[in-house]
Protein backbone atom coordinates (compact mmCIF):
# COMPACT_ATOMS: atom_id res chain seq x y z
CA UNK A 1 0.00 0.00 0.00
CA UNK A 2 1.45 3.36 -1.00
CA UNK A 3 1.09 6.42 1.16
CA UNK A 4 2.03 8.64 -1.75
CA UNK A 5 5.72 8.92 -0.88
CA UNK A 6 7.23 5.52 -1.65
CA UNK A 7 8.23 4.96 -5.24
CA UNK A 8 9.61 1.72 -6.52
CA UNK A 9 9.21 2.67 -10.15
CA UNK A 10 11.44 5.74 -10.07
CA UNK A 11 8.70 8.26 -10.77
CA UNK A 12 8.90 11.73 -9.34
CA UNK A 13 8.05 11.78 -5.67
CA UNK A 14 4.48 12.72 -4.93
CA UNK A 15 3.30 13.73 -1.52
CA UNK A 16 0.34 15.20 0.26
CA UNK A 17 2.21 18.52 0.26
CA UNK A 18 1.86 18.97 -3.49
CA UNK A 19 -1.24 16.94 -4.07
CA UNK A 20 -3.38 20.04 -4.45
CA UNK A 21 -1.27 21.16 -7.42
CA UNK A 22 -3.26 20.04 -10.42
CA UNK A 23 -2.20 19.79 -14.02
CA UNK A 24 -2.83 23.37 -15.26
CA UNK A 25 -3.94 22.26 -18.73
CA UNK A 26 -6.52 19.93 -17.25
CA UNK A 27 -7.96 22.46 -14.85
CA UNK A 28 -8.45 25.55 -16.96
CA UNK A 29 -12.14 24.83 -17.44
CA UNK A 30 -14.53 25.94 -14.73
CA UNK A 31 -17.49 23.91 -13.53
CA UNK A 32 -19.74 26.41 -15.34
CA UNK A 33 -17.98 25.72 -18.63
CA UNK A 34 -18.23 21.95 -18.14
CA UNK A 35 -21.88 22.21 -17.07
CA UNK A 36 -22.60 24.38 -20.11
CA UNK A 37 -21.07 21.81 -22.45
CA UNK A 38 -23.11 19.05 -20.80
CA UNK A 39 -26.30 21.10 -21.12
CA UNK A 40 -25.68 21.72 -24.83
CA UNK A 41 -25.17 18.01 -25.56
CA UNK A 42 -28.23 17.05 -23.53
CA UNK A 43 -30.39 19.65 -25.25
CA UNK A 44 -29.27 18.40 -28.68
CA UNK A 45 -30.16 14.85 -27.58
CA UNK A 46 -33.57 16.01 -26.33
CA UNK A 47 -34.29 17.53 -29.73
CA UNK A 48 -33.27 14.31 -31.49
CA UNK A 49 -35.61 12.28 -29.31
CA UNK A 50 -38.43 14.76 -29.99
CA UNK A 51 -37.71 14.25 -33.69
CA UNK A 52 -38.22 10.51 -33.22
CA UNK A 53 -34.76 9.14 -32.48
CA UNK A 54 -34.63 6.06 -30.27
CA UNK A 55 -33.73 6.75 -26.63
CA UNK A 56 -30.10 6.10 -25.74
CA UNK A 57 -29.38 3.55 -23.02
CA UNK A 58 -25.59 3.70 -22.76
CA UNK A 59 -23.05 6.50 -22.20
CA UNK A 60 -21.65 8.36 -25.18
CA UNK A 61 -18.06 7.24 -25.60
CA UNK A 62 -17.30 10.56 -27.30
CA UNK A 63 -18.18 12.99 -24.53
CA UNK A 64 -15.90 16.05 -24.49
CA UNK A 65 -16.90 17.38 -21.03
CA UNK A 66 -15.09 14.26 -19.71
CA UNK A 67 -11.70 15.45 -20.95
CA UNK A 68 -9.96 12.09 -20.70
CA UNK A 69 -12.37 10.70 -23.29
CA UNK A 70 -11.14 13.06 -26.02
CA UNK A 71 -8.30 10.86 -27.27
CA UNK A 72 -9.59 7.56 -25.93
CA UNK A 73 -12.73 6.90 -27.96
CA UNK A 74 -12.94 5.30 -31.40
CA UNK A 75 -14.07 7.77 -34.04
CA UNK A 76 -15.53 5.11 -36.33
CA UNK A 77 -18.87 3.50 -35.61
CA UNK A 78 -18.77 0.13 -33.92
CA UNK A 79 -18.88 -2.58 -36.59
CA UNK A 80 -21.73 -5.07 -36.35
CA UNK A 81 -20.65 -8.66 -35.79
CA UNK A 82 -22.83 -11.77 -35.80
CA UNK A 83 -21.64 -13.59 -32.71
CA UNK A 84 -19.72 -16.82 -33.22
CA UNK A 85 -19.26 -19.75 -30.88
CA UNK A 86 -16.81 -18.24 -28.40
CA UNK A 87 -18.89 -15.05 -28.23
CA UNK A 88 -21.96 -17.03 -27.19
CA UNK A 89 -20.31 -18.31 -24.03
CA UNK A 90 -18.71 -16.85 -20.96
CA UNK A 91 -15.95 -17.84 -18.57
CA UNK A 92 -17.08 -19.87 -15.58
CA UNK A 93 -16.44 -18.84 -12.00
CA UNK A 94 -17.40 -20.61 -8.81
CA UNK A 95 -16.87 -20.99 -5.09
CA UNK A 96 -13.35 -22.17 -5.92
CA UNK A 97 -12.61 -18.68 -7.21
CA UNK A 98 -14.29 -16.57 -4.55
CA UNK A 99 -14.60 -17.15 -0.81
CA UNK A 100 -18.00 -16.29 0.68
CA UNK A 101 -16.38 -13.79 3.08
CA UNK A 102 -15.04 -11.69 0.19
CA UNK A 103 -18.44 -10.02 -0.09
CA UNK A 104 -17.96 -8.36 3.32
CA UNK A 105 -15.59 -5.41 2.89
CA UNK A 106 -15.76 -4.55 6.60
CA UNK A 107 -13.96 -7.67 7.91
CA UNK A 108 -10.81 -7.70 5.81
CA UNK A 109 -8.54 -6.22 8.49
CA UNK A 110 -8.07 -6.35 12.23
CA UNK A 111 -10.50 -3.58 13.11
CA UNK A 112 -13.78 -2.04 12.02
CA UNK A 113 -13.52 0.49 9.20
CA UNK A 114 -14.71 4.03 9.88
CA UNK A 115 -17.94 5.17 8.27
CA UNK A 116 -21.56 4.33 7.63
CA UNK A 117 -21.94 0.54 7.35
CA UNK A 118 -24.23 -0.38 4.46
CA UNK A 119 -25.52 -3.42 2.64
CA UNK A 120 -25.80 -3.22 -1.15
CA UNK A 121 -27.86 -6.08 -2.53
CA UNK A 122 -29.71 -6.88 -5.72
CA UNK A 123 -29.87 -9.20 -8.69
CA UNK A 124 -27.99 -9.56 -11.94
CA UNK A 125 -30.42 -10.18 -14.82
CA UNK A 126 -30.02 -10.42 -18.56
CA UNK A 127 -31.96 -8.42 -21.12
CA UNK A 128 -34.64 -11.11 -21.15
CA UNK A 129 -35.13 -10.80 -17.40
CA UNK A 130 -33.46 -14.12 -16.69
CA UNK A 131 -31.28 -14.30 -13.58
CA UNK A 132 -27.55 -14.58 -14.20
CA UNK A 133 -26.67 -17.32 -11.69
CA UNK A 134 -23.25 -18.40 -10.47
CA UNK A 135 -21.39 -15.50 -12.06
CA UNK A 136 -18.64 -13.24 -10.76
CA UNK A 137 -19.37 -9.75 -9.41
CA UNK A 138 -16.41 -7.57 -8.41
CA UNK A 139 -16.62 -4.19 -6.70
CA UNK A 140 -14.19 -1.45 -5.64
CA UNK A 141 -14.68 1.93 -4.03
CA UNK A 142 -13.27 4.83 -2.05
CA UNK A 143 -13.49 4.84 1.73
CA UNK A 144 -15.71 6.99 3.96
CA UNK A 145 -13.34 9.93 3.45
CA UNK A 146 -13.28 9.66 -0.34
CA UNK A 147 -9.86 8.02 -0.56
CA UNK A 148 -8.89 4.99 -2.65
CA UNK A 149 -6.08 2.61 -1.77
CA UNK A 150 -4.07 3.40 -4.88
CA UNK A 151 -0.75 5.15 -5.37
CA UNK A 152 -2.28 7.44 -7.96
CA UNK A 153 -4.97 8.67 -5.58
CA UNK A 154 -3.33 11.73 -4.03
CA UNK A 155 -6.44 13.26 -2.48
CA UNK A 156 -5.30 14.40 0.99
CA UNK A 157 -8.02 12.52 2.82
CA UNK A 158 -7.14 9.78 5.30
CA UNK A 159 -6.53 6.18 4.33
CA UNK A 160 -8.45 3.80 6.59
CA UNK A 161 -6.12 0.98 7.68
CA UNK A 162 -9.18 -1.22 8.13
CA UNK A 163 -10.65 -0.67 4.68
CA UNK A 164 -9.28 -1.65 1.27
CA UNK A 165 -12.56 -1.14 -0.55
CA UNK A 166 -12.47 -4.30 -2.68
CA UNK A 167 -15.01 -7.13 -2.76
CA UNK A 168 -16.13 -10.13 -4.82
CA UNK A 169 -19.17 -12.37 -4.90
CA UNK A 170 -20.65 -15.20 -6.94
CA UNK A 171 -24.31 -14.64 -7.75
CA UNK A 172 -26.89 -17.03 -6.31
CA UNK A 173 -29.42 -19.16 -8.22
CA UNK A 174 -31.70 -16.15 -8.73
CA UNK A 175 -28.85 -13.87 -9.76
CA UNK A 176 -28.72 -12.34 -6.31
CA UNK A 177 -25.67 -10.71 -4.72
CA UNK A 178 -25.10 -8.88 -1.44
CA UNK A 179 -22.14 -6.84 -0.25
CA UNK A 180 -21.54 -5.40 3.20
CA UNK A 181 -19.38 -2.30 3.00
CA UNK A 182 -18.93 1.33 4.06
CA UNK A 183 -20.68 4.15 2.26
CA UNK A 184 -18.06 5.82 0.05
CA UNK A 185 -17.63 9.60 0.03
CA UNK A 186 -17.33 11.92 -2.97
CA UNK A 187 -13.80 12.85 -3.98
CA UNK A 188 -12.09 15.52 -6.07
CA UNK A 189 -10.53 14.77 -9.44
CA UNK A 190 -8.69 16.70 -12.12
CA UNK A 191 -11.12 16.91 -15.01
CA UNK A 192 -11.65 20.64 -14.42
CA UNK A 193 -11.32 23.17 -11.63
CA UNK A 194 -13.10 22.07 -8.43
CA UNK A 195 -14.35 18.83 -9.99
CA UNK A 196 -15.91 16.29 -7.60
CA UNK A 197 -17.19 12.81 -8.35
CA UNK A 198 -20.53 11.77 -6.82
CA UNK A 199 -20.11 8.91 -4.33
CA UNK A 200 -20.08 5.61 -6.21
CA UNK A 201 -19.15 1.94 -6.12
CA UNK A 202 -17.54 0.38 -9.22
CA UNK A 203 -19.16 -2.88 -10.36
CA UNK A 204 -17.66 -5.43 -12.76
CA UNK A 205 -20.08 -8.00 -14.21
CA UNK A 206 -20.16 -11.10 -16.39
CA UNK A 207 -23.14 -12.68 -18.11
CA UNK A 208 -23.79 -15.97 -19.88
CA UNK A 209 -22.24 -14.62 -23.11
CA UNK A 210 -18.94 -12.72 -23.02
CA UNK A 211 -20.60 -10.01 -25.13
CA UNK A 212 -22.54 -9.10 -21.95
CA UNK A 213 -19.34 -8.23 -20.07
CA UNK A 214 -19.62 -4.81 -18.46
CA UNK A 215 -18.09 -2.44 -15.92
CA UNK A 216 -20.16 0.35 -14.44
CA UNK A 217 -20.66 2.52 -11.36
CA UNK A 218 -23.50 2.46 -8.83
CA UNK A 219 -24.52 5.78 -7.30
CA UNK A 220 -26.51 6.74 -4.21
CA UNK A 221 -29.91 8.44 -4.33
CA UNK A 222 -30.10 12.22 -4.15
CA UNK A 223 -26.42 12.97 -4.66
CA UNK A 224 -26.06 16.75 -5.16
CA UNK A 225 -23.08 16.18 -7.47
CA UNK A 226 -25.03 14.30 -10.17
CA UNK A 227 -25.72 17.37 -12.29
CA UNK A 228 -22.08 18.45 -12.21
CA UNK A 229 -20.41 15.16 -13.09
CA UNK A 230 -19.40 14.61 -16.73
CA UNK A 231 -18.95 10.85 -16.25
CA UNK A 232 -22.50 10.34 -14.95
CA UNK A 233 -23.87 12.88 -17.44
CA UNK A 234 -22.16 11.11 -20.36
CA UNK A 235 -25.41 9.12 -20.30
CA UNK A 236 -27.57 11.65 -22.10
CA UNK A 237 -30.89 10.02 -21.26
CA UNK A 238 -32.32 10.79 -17.80
CA UNK A 239 -34.10 7.43 -17.46
CA UNK A 240 -30.90 5.62 -18.38
CA UNK A 241 -28.95 7.65 -15.79
CA UNK A 242 -31.49 6.70 -13.13
CA UNK A 243 -30.67 3.03 -13.75
CA UNK A 244 -27.28 3.58 -12.10
CA UNK A 245 -28.80 4.92 -8.88
CA UNK A 246 -29.48 2.47 -6.04
CA UNK A 247 -32.69 2.67 -4.00
CA UNK A 248 -32.70 2.98 -0.25
CA UNK A 249 -34.49 -0.18 0.94
CA UNK A 250 -35.53 -0.41 4.57
CA UNK A 251 -36.14 -4.15 4.22
CA UNK A 252 -32.38 -4.50 3.61
CA UNK A 253 -31.61 -2.31 6.61
CA UNK A 254 -30.85 -4.34 9.72
CA UNK A 255 -31.62 -3.35 13.31
CA UNK A 256 -28.74 -1.50 14.96
CA UNK A 257 -26.31 -2.69 12.29
CA UNK A 258 -26.42 -1.37 8.71
CA UNK A 259 -28.59 0.58 6.28
CA UNK A 260 -29.54 -1.13 3.02
CA UNK A 261 -29.55 -0.22 -0.65
CA UNK A 262 -31.02 -2.22 -3.51
CA UNK A 263 -29.57 -2.18 -7.00
CA UNK A 264 -30.46 -4.58 -9.79
CA UNK A 265 -28.24 -4.78 -12.86
CA UNK A 266 -29.50 -5.69 -16.32
CA UNK A 267 -26.97 -6.96 -18.85
CA UNK A 268 -27.50 -6.93 -22.59
CA UNK A 269 -29.38 -9.80 -24.20
CA UNK A 270 -27.88 -13.25 -24.56
CA UNK A 271 -27.55 -14.36 -28.17
CA UNK A 272 -26.98 -18.03 -27.44
CA UNK A 273 -30.55 -19.18 -26.93
CA UNK A 274 -32.18 -17.61 -29.96
CA UNK A 275 -29.28 -18.41 -32.28
CA UNK A 276 -29.20 -22.04 -31.15
CA UNK A 277 -32.99 -22.23 -31.55
CA UNK A 278 -32.61 -20.90 -35.05
CA UNK A 279 -29.87 -23.42 -35.83
CA UNK A 280 -32.13 -26.20 -34.58
CA UNK A 281 -34.82 -25.19 -37.04
CA UNK A 282 -32.68 -25.98 -40.07
Amino acid sequence: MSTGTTHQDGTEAESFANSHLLDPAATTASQDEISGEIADIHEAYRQEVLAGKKAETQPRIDFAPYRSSLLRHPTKNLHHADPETIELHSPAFGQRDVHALESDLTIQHNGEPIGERIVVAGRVLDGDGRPVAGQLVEIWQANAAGRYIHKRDQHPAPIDPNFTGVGRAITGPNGEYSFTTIKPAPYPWKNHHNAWRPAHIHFSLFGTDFTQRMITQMYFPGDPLFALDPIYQSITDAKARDRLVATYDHSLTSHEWATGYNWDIVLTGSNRTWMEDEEGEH
Partner: protein
Amino acid sequence: MAQAPELKLVPTPGQTIGPFYGYALPFEKDNELASQANPNSVRLHGVITDGNGEVIPDALLEIWQADEHGKVVSRDGSLVRDGYTFTGWGRVAVDNVGHYTFTTVNPGPTEEGKAPFIMLTVFARGLLNRLFTRIYLPEDTKALANDPLLASLSEAERSTLIATREQDGSLRFDIRLQGENETVFLSYPRES
Protein backbone atom coordinates in the same frame (compact mmCIF):
# COMPACT_ATOMS: atom_id res chain seq x y z
CA MET B 1 -29.54 -14.56 -40.00
CA ALA B 2 -32.96 -13.95 -38.50
CA GLN B 3 -33.79 -10.80 -36.58
CA ALA B 4 -32.69 -10.95 -32.95
CA PRO B 5 -35.64 -10.90 -30.55
CA GLU B 6 -36.42 -7.65 -28.70
CA LEU B 7 -35.13 -7.26 -25.16
CA LYS B 8 -37.63 -7.41 -22.31
CA LEU B 9 -35.57 -5.21 -19.99
CA VAL B 10 -33.44 -2.18 -20.74
CA PRO B 11 -29.74 -2.81 -20.05
CA THR B 12 -27.96 -0.88 -17.31
CA PRO B 13 -25.52 1.70 -18.69
CA GLY B 14 -21.79 1.08 -18.50
CA GLN B 15 -19.32 3.58 -17.03
CA THR B 16 -15.56 4.00 -17.22
CA ILE B 17 -13.36 1.65 -15.20
CA GLY B 18 -11.56 4.78 -13.90
CA PRO B 19 -7.97 4.77 -12.64
CA PHE B 20 -8.34 3.05 -9.26
CA TYR B 21 -9.07 -0.62 -10.00
CA GLY B 22 -5.54 -1.70 -9.01
CA TYR B 23 -6.38 -3.51 -5.78
CA ALA B 24 -9.63 -4.95 -7.11
CA LEU B 25 -9.25 -6.48 -10.54
CA PRO B 26 -5.68 -7.73 -11.07
CA PHE B 27 -4.86 -11.05 -9.40
CA GLU B 28 -1.93 -13.45 -9.31
CA LYS B 29 -1.23 -15.03 -12.73
CA ASP B 30 -4.22 -13.16 -14.16
CA ASN B 31 -2.58 -13.04 -17.60
CA GLU B 32 -1.39 -16.68 -17.59
CA LEU B 33 -4.14 -18.70 -19.25
CA ALA B 34 -1.47 -21.31 -19.85
CA SER B 35 1.74 -21.94 -17.94
CA GLN B 36 4.90 -20.69 -19.61
CA ALA B 37 6.22 -24.21 -19.00
CA ASN B 38 3.56 -25.61 -21.33
CA PRO B 39 5.41 -26.34 -24.60
CA ASN B 40 2.34 -25.19 -26.56
CA SER B 41 2.06 -21.86 -24.77
CA VAL B 42 2.36 -18.68 -26.81
CA ARG B 43 2.86 -15.08 -25.88
CA LEU B 44 0.16 -12.67 -27.02
CA HIS B 45 1.33 -9.10 -26.60
CA GLY B 46 1.08 -5.57 -27.88
CA VAL B 47 0.64 -1.93 -27.02
CA ILE B 48 -2.47 0.21 -26.58
CA THR B 49 -2.35 3.79 -27.86
CA ASP B 50 -4.63 6.83 -27.94
CA GLY B 51 -5.57 9.30 -30.69
CA ASN B 52 -2.18 11.02 -30.47
CA GLY B 53 -0.35 7.73 -30.74
CA GLU B 54 0.64 8.03 -27.07
CA VAL B 55 0.63 4.85 -25.02
CA ILE B 56 -2.21 4.35 -22.54
CA PRO B 57 -0.66 3.25 -19.24
CA ASP B 58 -3.85 2.50 -17.30
CA ALA B 59 -5.95 0.24 -19.55
CA LEU B 60 -7.21 -3.17 -18.45
CA LEU B 61 -7.68 -5.92 -21.04
CA GLU B 62 -9.43 -9.27 -20.94
CA ILE B 63 -9.35 -12.14 -23.41
CA TRP B 64 -11.73 -15.09 -23.81
CA GLN B 65 -10.97 -17.93 -26.20
CA ALA B 66 -11.36 -21.59 -27.11
CA ASP B 67 -8.62 -24.09 -26.32
CA GLU B 68 -6.10 -25.50 -28.81
CA HIS B 69 -8.71 -27.90 -30.18
CA GLY B 70 -11.33 -25.21 -30.70
CA LYS B 71 -13.32 -26.34 -27.69
CA VAL B 72 -15.05 -23.69 -25.60
CA VAL B 73 -14.35 -24.68 -22.02
CA SER B 74 -16.49 -23.99 -18.97
CA ARG B 75 -14.15 -24.45 -16.02
CA ASP B 76 -13.87 -22.39 -12.87
CA GLY B 77 -10.53 -21.57 -11.29
CA SER B 78 -9.45 -18.55 -13.33
CA LEU B 79 -8.94 -16.48 -10.14
CA VAL B 80 -6.89 -19.22 -8.46
CA ARG B 81 -4.70 -20.45 -11.30
CA ASP B 82 -3.24 -23.90 -10.71
CA GLY B 83 -1.04 -23.91 -13.82
CA TYR B 84 -2.86 -26.93 -15.26
CA THR B 85 -6.48 -25.93 -15.85
CA PHE B 86 -7.16 -23.99 -19.03
CA THR B 87 -10.16 -21.74 -18.33
CA GLY B 88 -10.05 -19.72 -21.56
CA TRP B 89 -10.18 -16.35 -19.81
CA GLY B 90 -7.49 -13.94 -18.69
CA ARG B 91 -7.02 -10.36 -17.59
CA VAL B 92 -4.11 -7.94 -17.60
CA ALA B 93 -3.49 -4.38 -16.49
CA VAL B 94 -1.13 -2.84 -19.06
CA ASP B 95 2.26 -1.62 -17.83
CA ASN B 96 3.58 1.96 -17.57
CA VAL B 97 4.28 2.04 -21.31
CA GLY B 98 0.91 0.64 -22.38
CA HIS B 99 2.25 -2.83 -23.10
CA TYR B 100 0.44 -6.05 -22.25
CA THR B 101 1.33 -9.73 -22.32
CA PHE B 102 -0.84 -12.82 -22.05
CA THR B 103 0.52 -16.35 -21.95
CA THR B 104 -2.02 -18.56 -23.67
CA VAL B 105 -2.40 -21.17 -26.39
CA ASN B 106 -3.37 -20.72 -30.03
CA PRO B 107 -7.12 -21.25 -30.15
CA GLY B 108 -8.28 -23.89 -32.59
CA PRO B 109 -11.18 -23.29 -34.99
CA THR B 110 -14.50 -23.78 -33.16
CA GLU B 111 -15.90 -25.31 -36.35
CA GLU B 112 -14.17 -26.89 -39.35
CA GLY B 113 -12.99 -24.14 -41.71
CA LYS B 114 -13.67 -21.24 -39.31
CA ALA B 115 -10.96 -18.67 -38.72
CA PRO B 116 -9.78 -18.96 -35.11
CA PHE B 117 -9.87 -15.77 -33.06
CA ILE B 118 -9.54 -14.56 -29.48
CA MET B 119 -12.17 -12.21 -28.07
CA LEU B 120 -10.74 -9.05 -26.52
CA THR B 121 -12.41 -6.46 -24.33
CA VAL B 122 -10.83 -3.11 -23.49
CA PHE B 123 -11.40 -0.97 -20.40
CA ALA B 124 -9.61 2.30 -19.62
CA ARG B 125 -9.87 5.55 -17.75
CA GLY B 126 -11.31 7.98 -20.29
CA LEU B 127 -13.14 5.17 -22.07
CA LEU B 128 -16.77 5.51 -20.99
CA ASN B 129 -17.84 2.00 -21.97
CA ARG B 130 -16.02 -1.24 -22.71
CA LEU B 131 -15.00 -2.09 -26.25
CA PHE B 132 -14.99 -5.51 -27.87
CA THR B 133 -12.90 -6.76 -30.74
CA ARG B 134 -11.44 -9.96 -32.20
CA ILE B 135 -7.80 -11.01 -32.48
CA TYR B 136 -7.57 -13.35 -35.48
CA LEU B 137 -4.67 -15.75 -35.87
CA PRO B 138 -2.82 -15.02 -39.13
CA GLU B 139 -2.09 -18.54 -40.41
CA ASP B 140 -5.26 -19.94 -41.99
CA THR B 141 -5.52 -17.51 -44.89
CA LYS B 142 -8.32 -19.48 -46.55
CA ALA B 143 -10.45 -19.35 -43.41
CA LEU B 144 -9.64 -15.64 -43.00
CA ALA B 145 -10.75 -15.03 -46.58
CA ASN B 146 -14.06 -16.77 -45.86
CA ASP B 147 -14.70 -15.02 -42.54
CA PRO B 148 -17.96 -13.03 -42.71
CA LEU B 149 -16.80 -10.23 -40.40
CA LEU B 150 -13.45 -9.74 -42.15
CA ALA B 151 -15.20 -9.86 -45.53
CA SER B 152 -17.35 -6.90 -44.48
CA LEU B 153 -14.29 -4.70 -43.80
CA SER B 154 -11.91 -2.70 -45.97
CA GLU B 155 -8.39 -4.03 -46.31
CA ALA B 156 -7.08 -1.38 -43.89
CA GLU B 157 -9.75 -2.19 -41.30
CA ARG B 158 -9.26 -5.91 -41.73
CA SER B 159 -5.56 -5.63 -40.97
CA THR B 160 -6.31 -4.12 -37.55
CA LEU B 161 -7.92 -7.40 -36.45
CA ILE B 162 -5.30 -9.91 -37.57
CA ALA B 163 -2.38 -10.55 -35.24
CA THR B 164 1.18 -10.79 -36.50
CA ARG B 165 3.18 -13.96 -35.83
CA GLU B 166 6.65 -13.02 -34.65
CA GLN B 167 9.77 -15.09 -35.27
CA ASP B 168 9.71 -16.61 -31.79
CA GLY B 169 6.10 -17.71 -32.24
CA SER B 170 4.56 -14.83 -30.29
CA LEU B 171 1.39 -13.16 -31.46
CA ARG B 172 1.59 -9.37 -31.71
CA PHE B 173 -1.64 -7.38 -31.55
CA ASP B 174 -1.61 -3.61 -31.02
CA ILE B 175 -4.75 -1.71 -30.05
CA ARG B 176 -5.31 1.80 -31.38
CA LEU B 177 -8.31 3.42 -29.73
CA GLN B 178 -8.41 6.36 -32.13
CA GLY B 179 -6.78 7.83 -35.22
CA GLU B 180 -4.57 6.28 -37.86
CA ASN B 181 -5.18 2.54 -38.21
CA GLU B 182 -7.87 2.75 -35.55
CA THR B 183 -8.76 -0.76 -34.41
CA VAL B 184 -12.17 -1.97 -35.56
CA PHE B 185 -14.38 -2.41 -32.51
CA LEU B 186 -17.54 -4.48 -32.56
CA SER B 187 -21.18 -4.32 -31.60
CA TYR B 188 -23.40 -7.35 -31.23
CA PRO B 189 -27.14 -8.02 -31.52
CA ARG B 190 -29.33 -7.31 -28.47
CA GLU B 191 -27.26 -4.56 -26.90
CA SER B 192 -30.31 -2.32 -26.49
